[in-house]
């Protein structure tokens, strides 16, 4: 074998790296996302909605409209908007609300605040609880998982909408007695709370599933082998790997919660007047499908556009974050 040994030295050459210049996962994701033109538009829409919501007072005052100002003159004797297309006019670009003559555009802009606030906060709460519970039960398994599993079963066994409605009053009262300001604040807190109580389960399930498969990966063991504790593993090792599924859930959840707010509003559990919310507008507008169809479509379209935007962005983000996303297809 002597010859082989000498040859060995021949063969060893220090060859340089030949891999293509590649990007970090983040850069890669951003690059992938940027390739998706539709997604960029959708993101623009979301940002637009957010900006409009945040700067509602400024925008409305610039446009010279107010969500609260009554305009009886814009209404006919039946309280319906004068003129065609729901009273669309120079003064009221999207027409006026039947019954009060309030400006629909202004209400839509202000309504976005409540709806997006509820949507985002509820999503924040449910995902935060969901992620923590999901990761912990997925990672810890055993007793912890079993107990959480039973709580999950219990939560799922209740008809949530029914309970949401039934508990509105007592819980709002309780909240107010805890010093949460009366009125819309306590209502928003309630809606978010109750959505949180029922909503975390879905996030937790997804996260738990992901965690179960993640924890089988050796990097978790590697971390343990170096002495890392549960918290470090959960937060430093597992969490960063959960963003993709979580983002997708989030983008679906936000519009879903906006819809829930409107259902509660439809059932008479919405915001207090004169506050505008999309839910209240949807609930109100359906009654005018004959008398004022323009009004019927405006909040609906506003919501659909947002929903689609979130959906497109969600999908794009998921695809962008999926390391093997692009290579996965046959048939």
């Amino acid at each position, binding site marked *: 074998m002597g010859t082989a040994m000498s040859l060995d030295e021949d063969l060893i050459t220090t060859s340089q790296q030949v*891999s293509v210049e*590649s990007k*970090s996962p983040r850069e890669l994701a951003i690059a992938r996302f940027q390739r998706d033109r539709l997604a960029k538009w959708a993101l623009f829409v979301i940002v637009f909605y957010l900006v409009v919501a945040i700067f509602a007072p400024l925008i409305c005052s610039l446009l010279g409209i107010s969500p609260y100002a009554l305009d009886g003159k814009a209404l006919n004797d039946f309280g319906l908007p004068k003129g065609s297309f729901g009273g669309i006019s120079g003064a009221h670009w999207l027409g006026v609300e039947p019954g009060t003559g309030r400006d629909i555009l202004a209400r839509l802009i202000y309504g976005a605040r409540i709806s997006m606030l509820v949507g985002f906060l509820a999503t924040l709460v449910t995902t935060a609880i969901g992620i923590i519970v999901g990761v912990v039960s997925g990672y810890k398994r055993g007793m912890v998982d079993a107990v959480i599993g039973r709580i999950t079963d219990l939560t799922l066994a209740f008809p949530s909408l029914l309970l949401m409605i039934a508990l509105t009053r007592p819980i709002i009262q309780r909240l107010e007695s805890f010093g949460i300001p009366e009125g819309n604040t306590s209502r928003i807190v309630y809606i978010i709370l109750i959505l949180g109580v029922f909503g975390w389960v879905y996030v937790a399930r997804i996260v738990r599933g992901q965690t179960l498969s993640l924890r089988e990966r*050796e*990097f978790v*063991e590697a971390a343990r082998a*170096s002495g890392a504790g549960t918290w470090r593993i959960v937060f430093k090792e597992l969490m*960063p*790997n959960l963003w993709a599924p979580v983002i997708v859930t989030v983008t679906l959840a936000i519009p879903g919660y906006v819809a829930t707010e409107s259902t509660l509003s439809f059932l008479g559990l919405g915001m207090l007047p004169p506050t505008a919310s999309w839910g209240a507008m949807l609930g109100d507008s359906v009654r005018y499908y004959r008398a004022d169809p323009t009004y019927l479509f405006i909040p609906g379209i506003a919501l659909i556009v947002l929903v689609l935007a979130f959906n497109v962005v969600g999908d794009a983000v998921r695809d962008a974050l999926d390391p093997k996303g692009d290579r996965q297809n046959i048939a």
Partner: protein
Amino acid sequence: MFTPIALEAKNLVKYFPTGHQGLLGRPTKELKAVDGVSFVLRQGETLGIVGESGCGKSTLARLITRLLDATSGEVILDGKDITSIKGRELRAVRQKLQMIFQDPYSSLNPRHSVGQIISGPLEVQGIIPDGGVKKRVQEMMELVGLNPEHYNRYPHEFSGGQRQRIGIARSLILNPSIIIADEPVSALDVSIQAQILNLLEKLQQELGLSFVFIAHDLSVVRHIADQVAVMYLGKIVEMGPSADVYASALHPYTTALLSAVPVPNPKMRGASGRIRLEGDVPSPVDPPSGCRFRTRCWKATDLCALEEPALADAGGGHLVACHHPMEASERAGKPHSDR
């Protein structure tokens, strides 16, 4: 044999509860993954452990590194049993005892940069080395043959062999004295395997490390190990100095294992004396009575079913657990004579 002992395992046992039955769903059976394994690892030496899939190699590795708690038995490090220590003490032990994993893809967190991965153990242990974390990490990267400039890159930007180097750097950063490597090259291409094996040997020499090297590939183990232990169904059936075991395997299982390895030499094709084992490894949930290998052993007798053979020294530190060890004459047709 005067080299001091680095690590000793005494009668390690790990049973996994399995099978859900009964009203309350309590597990009723036990899967005997590791069933009474003892060995000694000497300083600066490499103990190779071979065996087929599911024989308990990884479980053994996890028991030693305390990733799993043993059902019974002891792991003695520096004269102390570490199987039941906790908290700070355990963390201290982990500095000394590090692990290299099989899969270079799943053993690196895809969302952490190389720097983060390698420095992770430092962070966990709360150690700030002289000159800073980054410097130390880059030293480690150089040591294992990685370009230190790639500090901020992510695992997916590296090839399998390079990733395994990242894993090795991570296991070395705490200056351990013992490394448990669980199939560190099995997932790698042949040309890369050799690079990693060379690297491990180099490190062992330079740093005076002791290795427990697990593999299912006998050729790889032969290359790196001083001592070899052959496992079958949770037990060590043969153990001894590498040269002895390969040259004159005593256990029929070892013999069969050796003869099943394909030889990269077409001229040896169809050589006689090849032993082909029938069937599969039995389930570790209810292993055969007596000698566990007897169901596939061509030499098995009634005795084998009744009595479990003990792992006994057959001379020169070559241990075997068999009632009917191979005779020298039987090995005559062994295909691996030098060509």
